[in-house]
């Protein structure tokens, strides 16, 4: 008994001694690595800094300084992989972490080309700092690029709520389904290279390609025209196959619904609606098309309900208002129709002018002024106020 007790004590003592020795060595090594990193940073020995920081990071994965040192070295070396390696496990807790996480998002959306991971980083940033302007901007851009219009609208609303939106958010928020990103096809193609099995990116790319092929076919030479015609045909087939593959994808279905509505294919629209997932109940595009179908059936009451719901979900969509006004006119509510129509005319005019701008940064203040007026008329008071504030601030910035 005594022997076993003694043995146990010896064992504990040995373990403690070993632990103490190991801890001491660890602390010494950490101190040494810290010093090395400082020295390498001062001397600009970036490769050695990265090596030391990597070792330090392995010893202390939660240590922000080790990762920061590694990022510094990696950035100096222009080594994206190293930067990503150090930022990847960066703690996501404190406001001080945000600049580093933002850097990680930069890398994910940029050179690393992992946008889906970038989205997660941005969302983590917003958990820490809800008014982080850059993260909102990134997410709005990402949702626009991936054609997730409902999520885009929600992100814009969140940015506005936190009073940290950039002016381009007003443009994106207003344009909604009318938004066309000229580089959409190229960007989503690049994003797909690292996430080739992503439904989201596959659909987004298909939608961008479809939009780019939707225009006229120039027949400068018959071969080109024939090629474009064949591409359009292939695109139609591909979209059908994609819908079969992803029947629950709302954005794909909404695109096809809109296409059916624009070309007056009520039956096709009805079929697409019939098979839409329940999440479509929160998507204004589906309500808009429902309203349009009922309107064509002269089912004015039902149509009105659908249009109202669509407007409730997306107050700035002038197209819904246009169809609603048309329906009201046919149902004999001329005064109401005229009022609604005048709002939709303003919206249409603003959209037309916006689409003529080369980019969101070139939008003249005058258009923002009209946009504020339009938001007001649509009952979107907060957006109207924010656009007005932006105009006021930019005027103040201009004045001496």
């Amino acid at each position: 008994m005594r022997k076993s007790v003694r043995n146990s004590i010896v064992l504990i003592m040995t373990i403690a001694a070993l632990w103490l020795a190991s801890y001491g060595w660890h602390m010494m090594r950490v101190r040494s690595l810290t010093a090395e990193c400082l020295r390498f940073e001062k001397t600009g020995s970036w490769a050695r800094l990265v090596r030391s920081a990597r070792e330090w990071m392995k010893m202390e994965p939660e240590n922000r300084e080790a990762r920061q040192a590694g990022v510094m070295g990696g950035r100096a070396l222009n080594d994206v992989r190293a930067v990503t390696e150090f930022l990847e496990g960066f703690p996501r807790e404190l406001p001080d972490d945000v600049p580093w996480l933002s850097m990680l998002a930069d890398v994910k959306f940029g050179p690393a080309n992992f946008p889906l991971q970038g989205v997660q980083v941005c969302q983590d940033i917003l958990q820490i700092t809800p008014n982080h302007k850059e993260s909102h901007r990134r997410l709005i851009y990402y949702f626009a690029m991936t054609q997730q219009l409902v999520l885009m609208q929600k992100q814009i609303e969140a940015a506005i709520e936190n009073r940290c939106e950039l002016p381009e958010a007003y443009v994106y928020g207003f344009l909604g389904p009318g938004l066309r990103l000229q580089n959409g096809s190229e960007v989503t193609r690049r994003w797909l290279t690292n996430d080739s099995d992503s439904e989201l990116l596959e659909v987004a790319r298909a939608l961008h390609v479809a939009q780019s092929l939707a225009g006229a076919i120039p027949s400068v030479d018959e071969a080109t025209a024939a090629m474009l015609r064949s591409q359009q045909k292939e695109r139609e087939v591909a979209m059908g196959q994609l819908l079969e593959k992803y029947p629950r994808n709302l954005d794909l279905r909404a695109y096809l619904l809109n296409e059916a509505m624009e070309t007056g294919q009520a039956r096709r629209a009805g079929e697409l609606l019939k098979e839409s997932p329940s999440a479509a109940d929160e998507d204004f595009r589906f309500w808009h098309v429902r309203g349009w179908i009922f309107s064509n059936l002269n089912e004015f009451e039902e149509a009105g309900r659908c249009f109202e719901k669509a407007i409730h979900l997306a107050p700035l969509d002038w197209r819904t208002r246009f169809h609603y006004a048309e329906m009201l006119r046919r149902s004999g509510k001329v005064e109401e129709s005229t009022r609604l129509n005048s709002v939709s005319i303003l919206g249409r005019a603003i959209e037309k002018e916006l689409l003529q701008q080369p980019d969101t940064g070139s939008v003249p203040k005058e258009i923002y002024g009209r946009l504020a007026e339009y938001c007001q008329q649509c009952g979107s008071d907060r957006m109207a106020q924010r656009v007005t504030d932006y105009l006021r601030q930019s005027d103040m910035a201009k004045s001496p």
Partner: protein
Amino acid sequence: MAELLSRPLIKAFVRSRSFSDRLLFFVALLCLLSGCNQGGDPNPVELQRTEVKQETEPVVEVSSIFSDLGSSESSSEDMKNRTSPIVRGDISFKDVASQIGLSFRYDNGADGQQLMVEATGGGCGWIDFDRDGFEDLYFPQGGNAARSGEADQPSDQLFRNIAGAFFKDASLQAGVSDHTYGQGVTVGDYNNDGFDDIFVTNVGRNQLLQNQGDGSFIAVSESAGFFEELWSSSAAWGDIDLDGDLDLYVCNYCDYDPKNPMICRNSRGIDSICHPKDVVPVADECYRNLGDGIFQACAKELGLFGDGNRGLGVVIADFDNDHWPDIYVANDTTANFLFVNTHGQSFQDVASIVGCAVNSNGMAQASMGIACGDYDRNGMLDLYLTHFTNEWNTLYANLGEKGFYDRTAMTNLVVPTMSRLAFGTLMADFNQDGFMEIFVANGHINPQEADGDGYPMRPQLFSYNGSGWDDVGDGAGDYFRRRVVGRGVATGDFDADGRLDLCVVHHDTEIALLHNESTIGNWLQLRLIGTGSSRSAVGSRVHVTIENQEWMAELAGGTSYCSSMQGILSFGLPVAAEKCRVRIEWPSGSSTVLENVVLNQMMSIVEPASDAEPARSYVLQVGR
């Protein structure tokens, strides 16, 4: 079978409560009723007719829901009344221009400079200038736009119709020698002397040619008050103030001088025809006829203006049935105008409010020509607008107080016109079966950058079947299989056989004179002579009634593109009938009723001095 299948669905529909369920039932029922295996959209009138047949259908409530699916607000009773037991005859046209000595080729002067004016011109006007009862033809001519007006440039031409058998160039004898770069023409008796006059739109000064009554014309532009040198396109006569003489509306396009042309390049840096948006629009003008041979510009004073006005087509007609002529203007790339007439004192553009400014997607289209007629027989004038490639032509059904309704898609008209670039268009009953046809002249504006079906395109002919439009061009003769660069088109019965023929102007080839060789039903043609109204009686409305069916047509000013129709009203009527009732609403406000009018004749009717007096009518031609 579909009807039988649909009954359980209808019952299920009644039982369903949520609107989404009802939507599903609607869709399913639509599928069944209109045939799921067929392309196209729900066929509203077919549904309606199905309903009419189902007289014993017990689900009355549902019947009423489906009674006017997608229709122009018509009750099923109305539609039943309008549905005539007419045998539909084949439609057939034959180009006889070369056979009967009619040779004219519009020269747009294209020589590689890519002048913007090369794209638009080329119209024709029917005019019986010698009053021999046979319609003659006037053609504005183009030429080298940079040298417009010079004596060596080709001039407009007037062809005299000799007894419907052949045409002879009468330009020299008639004193027609305008060398200005021509665009369009409109015909009307502006001085009420009984001889139709000609207004020619040009790139440069427009020309008013006064008919001397002796087979010749004199140019009276300056003395009449037409001084401006603009780029005008279509024009229309109409008595907008109802003072008994014809006023004039002239569409102007944009500020472009072909002698000092603006240079535009395409995305590849190659010289290209300018896009309309690159060029400043020029407002249309309206000229009030003062009655003494002088016209006074009055567009601004009357409120006849709007944003982005690049007018290419115009119709003067009563669109709101208030007996005052309104003006509809087709604008290129911007919203169209509907100027509603307030008792001749002023006009207000209500197109956006009533739903005929932009299409059903809310988009302004590149509008060119306009067809006008009551295709759905609801007593209101409908509109058909032609557009650029990828924009499809648009059919606006007039619902009266409920405005206009874009029924293009619902009546199967979207797909057939997507790849065409259309200019001239008109609505007429060519086979006289009581249903309208629409003719469309197609052709691109630029051979280097033609999209869609290319530079020359096939013309189109659509026939209304009571619920939708069928593309019947393929079976309507060789002309519809030819590819041409079509522009202006106008109807006229050149051989007075009771069938409306067509004259079509092309850019790349000789004009076509399409002799109507369709199998026809009964018909009635009316030439109206105003007394209290303008002599041309533009704006007159005629209602032809047989039992409980009624057809309405108005002698509208303008329509089509850069062209002028023969000034008659033509009706196709049921084969079983022998006589009809004719009611004429004259622009002056008086009306004339003729009972037991024999069919298959062309009549001339003179407006009585008062309602109490009987109208004088003359039979001009009888037989099929």
